[in-house]
């Protein structure tokens, strides 16, 4: 079976290399026939990879421990749901999933454009296949999921080796968020290859109008959405599984997913300026190339072991291949942009600082600076080791120090940007537009100060949230009022129709509402509190406004693990609000790893977060409790954001 998997991968690699070469030959000789054969090779290659993936799934479900991937990431007692997830439980299998998604995207792109853009498609194909061939090559030769285990005896003979049971899936990965997080995140990384491929093809064929942007708008948005969901799920997983009480730690692997998202966000905004005003053309090319490259770079960081991270896969020898690959892509993109610069001239100049264009420009500036800061902090240990000889790391004070002000600046722009008109805004109209947002912001700020809040950044953040939310709600009101007057629609209907009539604009506003709510949640971070206690049964411990009482400890086992469970009664103002049951699990497989399972009492105002990390011999039970204000709004805000992004993705009704 494993040989069949290898065969499928090899078949897919040969076909994708063929498709790469054939599309280039077809383009240079203007032979549609050859391009068509390249397209058929893309489909066949997708079939090959799909079969390889099914083979791996079969090996996992059949408990075939002769395969090293199965032996390393599954075991007999593992629930079937996690056996499927074990495909991406180690780096070789996850790369197969990566290749599968890539090939699927390529096949969809080929199918969608079978009758369109015939002159651009060979180059689109070439980029897609270069990308796919690279990952298939790594998957087949350097990180192969179908490797068989062998035993080498002292006399030099080699025999196949089949362990009685597997090592099991890493217990930390046995959680629903972790099961869906990697596939969603991969799609969020991979998808940027499509707009990049079209951008590249547009450069190659000198068709530098807005076609490449329009045709890939949905791809870009979808990818951006999935990457966002992937990042949030990763945070959610860290929050409820890792048990340290937070959801973001500026870990290199977290950073590597944030960087393409930041630049991708800049790209999403700046293409609007190109579509509306014919400006920023070179800049957009650079942004999409960077977004794509940062996605590859993120994979490189996660898979090469170059940067130490708790989340990274075990060090592997893939590093240099990634460096060469990224260098080729970067050099080719920069060369083409330079060579085609005369086609990329701006059609207009910037007329005023108080214009939508300049708001977008500042948005781009701060997003790119933020990305650069994250990149700098992430790579500094590597840089300093090469330049100075000693590895120096930077921590959260650096990342927070620079990204909190950037975040607040962005939040401010989210509020004022849409109030600016294209071309030029008069001070008078700006004053009128700013009236209500400024009043609500002032009220919020006064309320916070009167309520005793003294943290500078949190006050600024919440004030800006009030500002942004008022500005957006006012936009909806204004639009709805027109409809109510003109058509006599009821208010909710008017808002719905308004949104559906102009999905890009109002969907975008909904995303902005989500961002503001999320920032409100992030501002709670400044007030996190934690308490640890060595508790005996019956003992009480105060945490913020709550009192926690340890009422009992129970023990038991499932097929997969042993557990110890603490029953903690949470009282607020003397009333029992909830019994929390954090667990401490010891898994039966692998090296008997223990994990903690967090118990949460989440309200709109705050999260009570309790971890039971074990008991000492003298029947003292170690309990850690966190009080995290406003965390709910981080998840809720991101949900609103994703909803808004989906609204902008809804298909337009065809106009007749």
């Amino acid at each position, binding site marked *: 079976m494993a040989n069949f998997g290898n065969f499928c991968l090899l078949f897919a690699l040969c076909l994708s290399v063929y498709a790469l070469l054939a599309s280039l030959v077809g383009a240079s000789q203007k032979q549609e026939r050859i391009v068509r054969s390249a397209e058929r090779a893309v489909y066949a290659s997708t079939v090959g990879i799909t079969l390889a993936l099914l083979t791996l799934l079969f090996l996992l479900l059949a408990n075939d421990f002769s395969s090293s991937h199965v*032996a*390393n*990431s599954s075991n007999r007692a593992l629930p079937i749901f996690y056996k499927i997830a074990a495909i991406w439980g*180690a780096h070789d299998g996850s790369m197969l999933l990566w290749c599968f998604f890539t090939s699927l995207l390529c096949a969809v792109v080929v199918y969608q454009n079978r009758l369109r853009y015939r002159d651009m498609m060979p180059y689109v194909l070439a980029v897609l296949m270069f990308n796919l061939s690279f990952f298939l090559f790594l998957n087949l030769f350097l990180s192969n999921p179908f490797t068989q285990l062998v*035993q*080498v005896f002292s006399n030099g003979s080699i025999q196949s*080796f089949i*362990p009685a049971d597997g*090592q099991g899936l*890493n*217990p*930390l990965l046995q959680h629903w968020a972790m099961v869906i997080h990697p596939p969603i995140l991969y799609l969020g990384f991979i998808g940027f290859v499509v707009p990049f491929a079209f951008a590249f093809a547009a450069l190659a064929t000198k068709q530098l109008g807005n076609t490449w942007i329009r045709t890939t708008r949905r791809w870009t948005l979808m990818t951006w959405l999935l990457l966002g969901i992937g990042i949030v799920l990763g945070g959610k997983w860290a929050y409820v599984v*890792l*048990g*340290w009480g937070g959801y973001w730690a500026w870990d290199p692997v977290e950073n590597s997913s944030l960087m393409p998202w930041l630049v991708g966000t800049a790209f999403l905004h700046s293409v609007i300026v190109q579509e509306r005003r014919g400006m920023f053309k070179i800049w957009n090319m650079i942004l999409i190339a960077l977004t794509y490259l940062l996605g590859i770079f993120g994979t490189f960081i996660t898979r090469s072991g170059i940067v*130490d*991270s*708790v989340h*990274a*896969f*075990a060090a592997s020898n893939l590093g240099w291949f990634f460096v060469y690959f990224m260098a080729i892509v970067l050099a080719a993109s920069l060369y083409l942009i330079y060579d085609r610069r005369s086609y990329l001239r701006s059609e207009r100049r*910037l007329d*005023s*600082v108080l214009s939508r264009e*300049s708001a977008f*420009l*500042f948005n781009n*500036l*701060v997003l790119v*600076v933020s990305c650069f*800061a994250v990149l*700098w902090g992430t790579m500094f*240990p590597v840089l300093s080791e090469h330049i100075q000889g*000693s*590895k*120096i*790391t*930077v*921590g959260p*004070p*650096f*990342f*927070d*120090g*620079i990204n909190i*002000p950037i975040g607040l*600046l962005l939040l401010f722009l989210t509020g004022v940007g849409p109030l600016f008109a294209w071309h030029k805004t008069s001070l008078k109209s700006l004053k009128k537009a700013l009236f209500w947002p400024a009043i609500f912001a002032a009220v919020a700020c006064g309320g916070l100060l009167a309520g005793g809040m003294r943290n500078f950044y949190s006050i600024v953040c919440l004030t800006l949230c009030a500002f942004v939310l008022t500005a957006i709600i006012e936009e909806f009101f204004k639009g709805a009022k027109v409809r109510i007057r003109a058509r006599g629609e009821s208010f909710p209907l008017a808002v719905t129709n308004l949104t559906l009539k102009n999905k890009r604009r109002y969907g975008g506003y909904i995303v902005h509402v989500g961002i503001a709510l999320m920032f409100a949640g992030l501002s709670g971070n400044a007030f996190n509190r*934690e308490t*640890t206690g060595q508790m005996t049964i019956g003992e009480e411990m105060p945490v913020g406004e709550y009192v926690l009482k340890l009422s009992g400890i129970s023990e038991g086992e499932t097929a997969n693990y042993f557990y110890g469970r603490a029953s903690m009664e949470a009282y607020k103002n003397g009333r029992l609000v909830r019994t929390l049951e954090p667990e401490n699990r010891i898994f039966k497989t*692998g*090296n*008997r*790893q*223990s*994990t*903690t399972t967090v118990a949460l009492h989440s309200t709109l105002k705050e999260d009570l977060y309790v971890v039971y*990390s074990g008991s*000492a*011999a003298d029947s003292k039970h170690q309990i*850690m409790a966190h009080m995290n204000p406003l965390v709910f709004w981080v998840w809720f805000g991101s949900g609103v954001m994703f909803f808004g992004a989906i609204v902008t993705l809804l298909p337009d009704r065809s106009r007749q």
Partner: protein
Amino acid sequence: MAPRIKLLVGGAVIVAALAWLGFVGFEESKAYYITVDEYHSLKGEIGDKTFRLAGDVVEGSIDRSKPQMEFLIASSETAIKVRYVGSDIIPDTFTDGSKALVEGTIAPDGTFQARNIQAKCASKYEAEYEQRNSS
């Protein structure tokens, strides 16, 4: 002033302010990241500064009987005794033989006072089989 110049000035001010904030945070949080072996050659330079020490947790050395957990962390040749003085929960992945990263300072008695422990275990799964394969 032409709008282009205004924008350039505005952009430059923002970037400069952010660069300054970045520099302050950078100075505050930069720390050496070294292995146990490297420590001995960098001892003088580090002094009582905070740094991060990476190595393997020596099998059987974790002592949880004291109020503050102690263990040995080692690279290929040498080991250093670590005392955990932080208050955060010790990560799930921290076990005998796991790769650990501790952050803190060296106390006068030569033990490492760790305020923070990170541990990574995933690679151990694979290492175990590799050993068995080649035995």
